[in-house]
């Protein structure tokens, strides 16, 4: 059997190991001076640390907690203090979304602002808009499609 790992030494001394595992480690330590010394040292420390038993205050903590809860029923206050921020955020998001939708409607050809972008497969490219916005890239690609006869447009 290999030497005890530092974690095994700790778990052996603190009594966390299942009895069979602990017995195997003890058997190894009994025959191995190095591991025996490490187990002894950890037992010594365990005992030194354990001798320090703190005195805890014997006051009535429950009464103090109850008093605090009765003094400060903080939950409703917290809800109200956060609500204006949430309402303001919702209004700002609403205004932003509305503005964006209106802008899209005014700039685009159709009355419906709903889609995120024009449906190229069915509506075909809005060449006017694409020329204004971007003379390269997507426009160039769509121009090629147009030259080929409109891609899937004829399918409908």
């Amino acid at each position: 059997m290999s030497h005890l790992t530092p974690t095994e030494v700790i778990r052996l001394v603190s009594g966390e190991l299942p009895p069979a595992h602990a017995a195997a480690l003890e058997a190894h330590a009994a025959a191995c001076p190095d591991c025996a010394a490490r187990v002894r040292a950890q037992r010594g420390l365990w005992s030194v640390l354990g001798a320090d038993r703190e005195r805890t205050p014997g006051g009535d903590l429950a009464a103090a907690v109850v008093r605090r809860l009765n003094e400060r029923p903080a939950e409703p206050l917290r809800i109200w203090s956060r609500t204006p921020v949430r309402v303001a955020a919702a209004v700002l998001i609403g205004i932003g979304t509305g503005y964006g939708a209106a802008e899209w409607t005014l700039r685009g050809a159709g009355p419906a602002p709903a889609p995120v972008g024009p449906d190229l497969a069915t509506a075909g490219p809005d060449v006017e808009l694409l020329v204004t916005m971007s003379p390269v890239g997507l426009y160039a690609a769509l121009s090629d499609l147009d030259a080929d006869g409109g891609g899937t447009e004829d399918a409908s």
Partner: protein
Amino acid sequence: MVPIAPSHDDESDEELMRRLAAGDTAALTPIVQRHQERVIRLAQRFLGRADLAEDVAQDAFVKLYRSAAMYQPEARFTTWLYRLVANLCWDRRRGLARARRREQEHDGAATVPDAATAMEADERTQRVRAAVAALPDRQRLAVILHRYHELSHKDIATVTGWSVSAVESCLVRAYATLRERLADLMDPPPEPPGPRR
């Protein structure tokens, strides 16, 4: 109003929490009475100050009361409670560290005594407390939960949110440091370990 109720020794923690979640505030007092000692001991050892420990304990039970509806009895109640207390201790520790930095900037020197000095104890106990208090925060918390609250490595991982291997690494380093610093208190003093293979 939250009434103070008589003790309910026969009821489990989970049952008391269920009652608390359902609005039965009388369930608070038995929970506090049952666990106040362990909560105060953890906070006191971690923060090193009895006055702060009681504050943290009050905060912990107020928080427990307010979050009772969110309690899920999947983990052991004490593990859940330890986690709550450990988080409050971390918060308090950060606050103390900030205050200490401000004081140092203001006065040009450290004026806050080390954690262990505020506790009453004999010399031997003072040595032990000072050695534990001088450990880095994570190692100290791991040792306190392991040695003084008898939590397993796995439970410490649940309480702290660290991995089990991180907990074990903390414990190995912390105990090695403590063995070195407290060697003269051990009976008999430990022999120097042989070469590690």
